């Protein structure tokens, strides 16, 4: 075999040693959409297991009437954290992982538009997940206010609630950056001749989902920031005694919450729209109508958040 001599002259085209990092650098410094997609999917799988263990705890306690295994406050912590971990740790990152893997391939792009920001979007998640899961270990335990964190119950929680708020902030930032990346990629990097109405359905559903994410994650951030200031900085956004309104938290939260459930399902709609034609051996029926329907769902989702309120 011939030996390759690395030329140390300024001509970097021969310098292959830096192109493909190996070992841990490959993953920590990943900018390749497939590697980042893989990272998201493994992260989501891990969080699925963690959330699953919490669900098993809930089921173990509920198996028989009465309290056999845990105090009621710990049970409430389990249900709360199961929800937060599954939503923000499992399902949302899993779909982002699919997006990273499939969108560049499906539109004929070489990678995502912002490869390095893509890396940052992913690597924000493990520290956020650690913050969320270790909230069980602080005095008072994890937040026990439910995944919807209604005020004023959330004001009564211990430091575990603050950790959950910070974790959700970080994961929200990650989602927003990911959404920006996806929109830019889809709108700018399609192969020549691929108009939007020729794009695979999964890319359409993710394009629409990305708009939803950018629209509503900041609203969640607002709601939980107000909860944080109510808890520690003397504000009364959700405290009637100070002139605030507990129901306002519900309004603001569900303005996020309803589009959030569509954020969680639209990518899955896109995936099904690929699987069924593949196995039915025929093209998707009513492609244009599917696009319009998905866009309508997204727009209408902002109007129906009232369904979730409890006033």
């Amino acid at each position, binding site marked *: 075999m011939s030996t390759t001599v690395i030329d140390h002259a300024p001509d970097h085209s021969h310098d292959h040693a830096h192109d493909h990092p190996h070992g841990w650098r490959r993953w920590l410094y990943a900018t390749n959409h497939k590697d980042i997609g893989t990272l998201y999917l493994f992260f989501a799988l891990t969080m699925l297991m963690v959330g699953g263990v919490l669900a098993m705890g809930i089921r173990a306690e509920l198996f028989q009437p009465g*309290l056999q295994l845990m105090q009621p*406050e710990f049970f409430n912590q389990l249900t709360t954290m199961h929800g937060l971990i599954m939503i923000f740790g499992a399902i949302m990152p899993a779909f982002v992982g699919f997006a990273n893997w499939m969108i560049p391939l499906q539109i004929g792009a070489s990678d995502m538009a912002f490869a390095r920001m893509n890396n940052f979007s992913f690597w924000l998640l493990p520290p956020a997940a650690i913050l969320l899961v270790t909230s069980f270990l602080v005095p008072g335990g994890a937040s*026990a206010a*439910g995944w919807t964190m*209604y005020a004023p119950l959330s004001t009564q929680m211990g430091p575990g609630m603050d950790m959950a708020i910070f974790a959700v902030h970080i994961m929200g930032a990650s989602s927003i950056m990911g959404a920006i990346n996806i929109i830019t990629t889809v709108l700018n990097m399609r192969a020549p001749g691929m108009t939007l109405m020729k794009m695979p359905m999964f890319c359409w559903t993710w394009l629409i989902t990305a708009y939803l994410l950018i629209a509503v994650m900041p609203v969640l951030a607002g709601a939980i920031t107000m909860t944080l200031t109510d808890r520690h900085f003397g504000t009364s956004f959700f405290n*009637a005694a100070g002139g605030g309104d*507990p*129901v306002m938290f519900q309004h603001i939260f569900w303005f996020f919450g309803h589009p959030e459930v569509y954020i969680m399902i639209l990518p899955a709609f896109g995936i099904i729209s690929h699987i069924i034609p593949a196995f039915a*051996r*025929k093209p998707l029926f009513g492609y244009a109508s599917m696009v319009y329907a998905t866009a309508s769902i997204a727009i209408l989702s902002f109007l129906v958040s009232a369904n979730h309120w409890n006033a």
Partner: protein
Amino acid sequence: MEIAKRLQSLMVGTALLVTGLPSWAVVDSPGGPAVLQLNLQPPVTQIAREIYSLHNLMLYICLVIFLAVFAVMFYSIIKHRKSKGHKSASFHESTTVEIAWTVIPFLIVIGMALPATKTVVSMKDTSNADLTIKATGMQWKWGYDYIKGEGTGVSFLSSMATPREQIVDPTKIKSDNYLLEVDNEIVVPVNKKVRMIVTANDVIHSWSIPAFGVKQDAIPGFVRDAWFKAEKTGVYRGQCSELCGKEHAFMPIVVKVVTDDEYTQWAGAKIKEQAAKADDPNKVWTVDELKQRGAQVYAANCVACHQATGKGVPGAFPALDGSVVVTGPKIEQIKVVLNGRNAMPAWKMLSDTDIAAAITYTRNNWSNKAQENIVQPAEVLAARK
């Protein structure tokens, strides 16, 4: 796996199963779910009946749609599978179909919305009530005040009556109304429109009775209302329906619907009882009187967190036995009990005498021998300012 190991797991499993056997006794819960009940509770008010019918209507619509969709699906999967060599139709769009399957579901939605809206409008109409009761959700009990109509002035707290041992000890038999029984139930006359004014003291709770078709969130600082008109006498039960902390599962609601005469009797007796029980504010109590009363107050209110042994739950709830607050200056303990601290809620809704009794009890019980070992109700009253 070795037989010995299998046998061991089998024995552990059987032992666990057997300890839970008493809870397997299966009877209809008198005011709650029947054995194997799947449907909504039998309706006892007009609104509940409408809700029940709406629920049936929507279930039938769902059933028809379900059958249609799955029939088409199974037919396609079975009859058009690849090995049958079926050739699929070649059209990939059809505006007619798209319009049809937008308009028809839209009409179905309207068909469901019209009767539902009618019922929602009736649910909101709380005017012309015969009787008005205010329900205040607290962590973790309900407070009721009869504020208008016959029985005005009746006022009481309603806490769960299921003893803690039934919940935590698997060898204790659970009562028929396990988790659905209270010490003081609301009593209302039959066939009278009752307006419930619902509010809360601390966090959001929710007042709910499935048999009446009533559920209203109790929001601190705000008053909301709901109404019901029970058409049958009997006892009807519900549970707090909004997560409100650790004892959310343990603050049920019980309404007893009685005839007009029985109601008049009950209201009269209750008012007399309240007047008699009202503690003389000038009475000076002895340590033993306070301790005796305090033991009861402690068992009804404090034991859930601080435990009957006074040892609390390490890491979560501080021990009272040997606590600095309990053995130190009494004004500190009075303040903590009145105003709460961190996870401990405020107990200012209890009477001065009850608080004084509970504090005196803790100061003289277990290994505590506080120097300031007696608190008079008047001191608690003074500390409220």
